[in-house]
């Protein structure tokens, strides 16, 4: 088919469907928006409460010569992401991976953004190697998404911290090696923060961390159950 013919037919198709559309009254649309906002607001209250409860700081000694003890905190995971998000993630990766397993991990609202987080494991169409990815999506000011992937075989490599939307109020998350029990977030001139590393799912040979908004983080340590460092970001050259 010639390009101008395709252009004409597509335009007619769109116009044809447009003619059949039946817009509800604008008041109904506004009402739907208000209801959604109310639902999100109640979710935000839950998130704030969960973060506040998890932020019970364990202060380290005041002696300057000793390393400050990490602030132990819990990840914010007050709301389960929508099941539609798994479909969205699958759609984003369907031209990169096959034999996919998608696990939705967490969601919440922060800094005017609704965020959702998922992990994907699959076989790369290009390299035929197993890959593990972490993907986030934000709806709000930025309305964006982002992901990072690693070969499953490179298990000892640690993921850098990621923050959806780049807002200071957003949580931090990333993939960590399989044996990681805790993740320490290091901040120059401030107490480190520690969060537990969590299971993603049975097929995943990686774990992940999710930390509340923590300004000033420059590097990360993955620690095993005995507190030994097993990986760090940025990696030691």
């Amino acid at each position: 088919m010639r390009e101008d013919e395709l252009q004409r037919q597509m335009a007619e198709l769109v116009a044809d469907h447009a003619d059949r559309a039946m817009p509800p009254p604008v008041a109904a649309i506004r009402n739907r928006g208000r209801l959604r906002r109310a639902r999100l607001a109640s979710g935000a209250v839950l998130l704030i409460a969960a973060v506040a409860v998890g932020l019970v700081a364990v202060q380290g000694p005041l002696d300057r010569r000793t390393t400050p003890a990490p602030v132990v905190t819990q990840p914010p995971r007050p709301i389960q992401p929508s099941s539609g998000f798994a479909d969205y993630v699958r759609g984003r990766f369907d031209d990169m991976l096959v034999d996919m397993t998608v696990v939705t991990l967490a969601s919440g609202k922060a800094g005017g953004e609704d965020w959702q987080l998922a992990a994907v494991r699959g076989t790369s169409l290009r390299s035929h190697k197993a890959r593990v990815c972490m993907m986030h999506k934000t709806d709000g000011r930025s309305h964006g998404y982002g992901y990072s992937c690693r070969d499953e075989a490179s298990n000892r490599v640690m993921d850098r911290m990621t923050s959806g939307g780049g807002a200071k109020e957003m949580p931090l998350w990333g993939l960590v090696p399989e044996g990681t029990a805790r993740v320490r977030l290091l901040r120059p001139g401030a107490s480190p923060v520690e969060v537990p590393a969590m299971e993603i799912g049975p097929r995943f040979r990686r774990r992940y961390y999710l930390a509340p908004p923590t300004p000033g983080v420059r590097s990360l340590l993955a620690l095993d159950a005995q507190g030994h460092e097993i990986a760090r970001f940025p990696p030691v050259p």
Partner: protein
Amino acid sequence: MRSDGDFEAFYQASYHRLVGQVTVLTGSNEDAEDAVQEAFARASTRWARLRDYDAPEAWVRRVAFNLATSGLRRARRQLAALARLGAPAAEPGRSTDRLAIEAGLRRLPFHYRQVLVLYYGADLPVEQVAQQLRLPTGTVKSRLARARAALGVHLEEGQKERGHARG
């Protein structure tokens, strides 16, 4: 309440057009209307900011496309089951060409349909399609070329099948 009036005018002016585009994308008028209404509902609560955008319609379209994408994945299994029951009956007043294009579009991967709808259906230049989908322009161009080629193949196959059915 000028702001309210603005939103209503914007809604009335864009609703039909967006439903048309999303329907071609999803193949379902009901899903398209639901996605577009939800996108407008979200726009209504952000209108104070959106009204200053150069093209608030692009924002609503992006949200509606994203919502339609999520809905589409969920519905794909149901569609596969429906497809086994046979093609839907032709609606009166619709040309064979139109039905063939629709059937061809349904057989394309979703990301091909996206670029075709935005480029041909919404008449956006490649740069704006790229902006809308957050893709490099080179990717959009290559997807467009592949989508056109794939659609051409499906249309040819459809023609042959109709020819066999007649013969």
